[in-house]
C-alpha cells in the first residue's frame, strides 16, 4: 500500500499535510495557515487543491476527520493522522528525501 506510486506534485501537498498533522489534529484552514507560516510564506496552499487533497487522503485512510469545536467556538472539521498515515508519512518522507537528493545531485554535476 505504502509503495503505491503517487504523482509527485500532488504527493508533495499530501506530504506537507501529513507532516503538519503529525503535530496534532487541525482543521483545513489551520493546515493551510501552518504550511504558510512554517514555509515563511513561500508555500501558499490553494483551497481548491487543499480540500480535494484532504478528501483523497481521507479516502485512502491516511487521515481521519471528525467534527469538533474550533478555538472561537465554531463547528469545524478536524483532521488527524491514522496509523496508516504515520507509516505513509515515513515512506513519503524517505522517498521525498531520496528525490531531493537525486535532484540536487543532478544540479550539482550537470
Amino acid at each position, binding site marked *: *500500500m505504502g509503495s503505491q506510486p503517487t504523482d509527485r506534485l500532488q504527493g508533495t501537498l499530501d506530504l506537507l499535510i501529513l507532516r503538519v498533522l503529525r503535530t496534532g489534529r487541525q*482543521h483545513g*484552514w489551520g493546515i*493551510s495557515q501552518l504550511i504558510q507560516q512554517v514555509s515563511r510564506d513561500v508555500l501558499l496552499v490553494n483551497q*481548491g487543491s487543499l*480540500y480535494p487533497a484532504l478528501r483523497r487522503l481521507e*479516502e*485512502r*485512510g491516511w487521515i481521519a476527520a471528525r467534527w469538533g469545536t474550533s478555538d472561537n467556538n465554531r463547528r469545524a*472539521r478536524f483532521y488527524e493522522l491514522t496509523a496508516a498515515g504515520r507509516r505513509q508519512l515515513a515512506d513519503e518522507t524517505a522517498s521525498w528525501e531520496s528525490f531531493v537528493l537525486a535532484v540536487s545531485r543532478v544540479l550539482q554535476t550537470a
Partner: protein
Amino acid sequence: MLGPARLFRRLRSLLTTRREDAELDEELRFHLEMEARQRERGGLSRADAERAARQAFGGAQHRDGARDARGVRPIEDFAQDLRVGLRGILRQRTYAVVAIATLAVGIGATTALWAAVYRALIQPFPFEQPDRIVTLWQDDVRTPGRRIEVAPGNFFDWQARSRSFAQFAAAEPYGFDWIGADGPVSFGVALVTKDFFPLQALRPLLGRAFLPEEFEPGRNSVVVLAERTWRTAFGSDSGIVGRTLTLDSVPRTVVGVMSEDAMRPYAAEMWAPKIFRPEERQYRSSGFWQVVARLAPGVTLEQAQAEMRGIASQLAVEYPATNRNGTVAVVPLRDAVVGTGRRTLLVLFGAVGFVLLIACVNVANLQLAESVRRQRELAIRTAIGAGHGRLIRQLLTECLLVASLGAAAGLVVANWGIAAIRTFAPAELWLLQRLEFDTPALLFAGLLGVIAAAAVAVMPMVAAGRIRLADSLAAGRRSGSTGRQARRANRALVVAEVALALVLMVGAGLLLRSLASVLNAERGYRTDGLVVASVQTWSYYPTPQLRAEFVRHTEEQLAALPGVERVGMTSALPLSWPIGLERVRVSVEGRSVASSDELPLVRTTAATGGYFDAMRIPLLRGRVFDVTDMAGSTPVAIVNASFARQHFGDENPIGKRLTLGFMGPPTAREIVGVVGDTRHEGLQASPAPGVFLPHAQAPTGATHLVVRVGGDPAAFQRVVRAELTAINGVMPLSDLTTMDARLSDSLRQRRFQLGLLSAFSAIALLLAAIGIYGVMSRVTSERTHEIGVRLAVGADRAAVRMMVLRSSGTLALAGIAIGTALALGLTRSMRGMLHGVSSLDPVTYVAAAAVLLAVAVVASWVPAWRASAVDPVVALRND
C-alpha cells in the same frame, strides 16, 4: 486491489454523497470565515474583509458584485447569454436542428388548427350583433334534432304569430340558366325575402341590396351577385352593376355584388327577390326553405324557443294531416353553420395539442440530456464565479433561443397547414375554405413559443439547481446525484411521450377502421367506370311526353358512342346532393290502414331499365323496365329487397299491386321486378325500402344519365358533354363527373379527419422514436463501464443486447399502459365520428400498442448493438 476498509469507505461515500456535499459546504464556509477574520484583524472593515476573503478564494463573486452596482448588468448579461447561446447552438448542431424542427412541427400544426378553430367556432360572424341571429327549422317530436327545412305555409304562420323576432327571413333554392361565352351555365340561386339582407346589415361590395319595392310582382327582375360569381363568371367586371343578364330567358338587372361574408343559403351564386304565390301559403307537407331571424331586443334564445314550440302545437291542432308531430327548433347561427364540424375540429385540436405536448417533451428531454452533459461546463462557470441566478438565466436564454427559432419555423409549417386545411376542409366546414394566416394565428404561435420555451426550460433548471459549489471541487466525481435524477426525469418523459403517441394512434386507428368499414360495406352498386351527367329538363322539355322522349333519344345516342357499354337514367343518384329523392306514401294491395297518414313514406325514383345494368344493381326477381313500359301501357313498378321483405316477407312480390302518387294522382301499379338494396344517402346510411317507376310513366325533369364505359370514365366526360351539347345546345349541364368522384366526395369529411389525425400520430410516433433513441443511447453510453465489467466477467453479448432492449421495452410498456387508460377515456369524445367500430375496439388498441412497442425496439436497436460491441478493456480503462 481494494482493501476491505477502503471498499467500505468508498461505498459509504457513494451512499452519502448528499450529506458529504453539505459537509463540504460547511467546511468551506468555515474556511472563508476564518480567512475574513484574519483580514479583519489586519485592519479591514468586516465587509471588506469578507470580500477580500472571497477574492482570495475564487475572486469572481467580487467581480459580479462590482458590475451589479453599475446597473447595466442585465443588458450586458443578456447580450452575453445570447452570444453564448448561439455559439452553443452552432456547436451542437444536431441537437439544435432536431429541437428546432420538433418545435416547428408542434407549434406549426397547432397554430394551423387553432386558426381553423378560431375561424369556425370563435371568430364572430361579420354581421351586426351576430349572436342575436338564429335559424329556425321544422322538427319532429318523435325524432328531435333532425332539423328539417321549412315549408312555406309554416313560415308564414310562424312569422305572423311570433313576437320574439325583430326580423324574419327565408331563402328558397332556385336555379337560373344563362348562356355565357363558354356555353350554357346553370347558376345556383337563393330566392330571398325582404328582411334577408337588412338582417345581415352588410355593406355591398358594389351597388346595393334589394329595395323593398323589388319584392312586388313585376318589379322583381333584379339580382345581386355573390363575390365569387362576379369574379369567376364575370371577370370582376367593375361595370357589372346595371348590366342586364338574360337568366332563364328573362332579362334581369344586376343591382349589386355582395362580399363573401354574406349568407349564401344552398351555396347560392346569386340572390333574387322571392315573389309569393297565393297557393304557397297552403304548402305544409314538404319543407325546402331555410329560415333565419334576429331575436327582438331583450328576448332570450330560450324564450324564443318556448314561444315557437307553443306556435307549433297550435299548428299541430289546426293542420293535423301535416303538422301533427311537428315542432320548431331555434338554433343559434353558429351551430347551424358549423353543425357536426364542431366535434371534428375540437377532437383534432385536442389531438394536435398532444403533438405539441410530445414535441415539448422531446425537446425538454434533449435539453435535459444536454444540460447534464454540460454539467462540467456549468460547474466550471460556477467555480470561476458565475452566480447561480446567472447560470439559470443563461440556460433560459438558450431555451428561449431554441423556442423562438422553433416558433419562427413553426410559422412556415402553420402556413402550409392552413393551406392544406383550406384545400381539404369538408363541405360542412365551408367556413374554412377562406381560412387565412391572420393576426390571431400569429399571436397564438407567439404564445405557443413562450409556453414551449417555459416547458423546455423547466428541465435544465431543475438540473442546474442541483449544481453546487462542491461539485466543481470534487474532482473525479462525475455527475453524482444530478445524473441519477436527470435520468429518472428522462425516463419519465419517454413514458409520457409513448403514452401520448398511443392515444393519437388509437384515435387515428379508430378513424381508419371506420373508413374501412364504410368502404367495405355492401353498397349494392359499382362506382367504377361510370360517367354521370345531370340536367334539369323542366323548362326545356315542358311536357311529360317531351321529357320522356328526351330521355329515350339521349340514351339511344349515348349508347351508340364507341366505348359505351350501357346507358341508364335515374331521377335520384346515390351519394349525390341535392338528394333529389321524393318520399311518397305507398299503400300495398290487401293491407289496410286506419288513415292515409299512417301509410309508410317510401323513397320513390324514376329510372330506365338501363340504370340497373349500368350501375350493376342486381335483379333478384322478375324483370327490369323495357321499351314496353310506355306512358299508356300497364303501370308498373320495381321494388328493392328491403321493400319486398318489409311488405311481403317470404312471399313472391311479382304480380302484386301497390298504389302511389308520383308526378300525378295515386295510381295502382303492378310489381314486375325486385332489385338489390343500395346505400343511397351515404355509405353509412343503411339501405331503406324503395320503389322505382319507369321514367316513361313518371317523366320527371330531374335527370341523371349514367354511362358505363370500357375505358377511363374521367377522360370520357368530354365525349358525353359533346354529345349532350349536340342534342341540346342551350340546356346547361348542371353536373358532369364520374361516380368514383361522387364516392370520394361523400367521404371527404372522413378523409379530412383521418388524414389530419394520421399525420398527427405519424409525427407523434416519429418524435417518440427519437425520444426513445436519445434516452437509450445516453443510458447505454453511461453504462459502458458496467457493461464492460459484465462482459469482462463473462456475460454474453446477446444478453447485454437483450438487457438494453428490455429496459427500453419496459419504458414503452409503461407508456402503453398509461396511454391505454388515457385513450379509453378520451376516444369517447370521438363516438360520433366512428362507424362500424366501437371506441373500445380491441384490435385498434392492440395494433397501436404493437406498433409502438416495435418502434421502441427498433429505436433502441442501435444503442443495444453499440452496447454489446463494447470492448471491456477500453471500457474499464475509461473510468
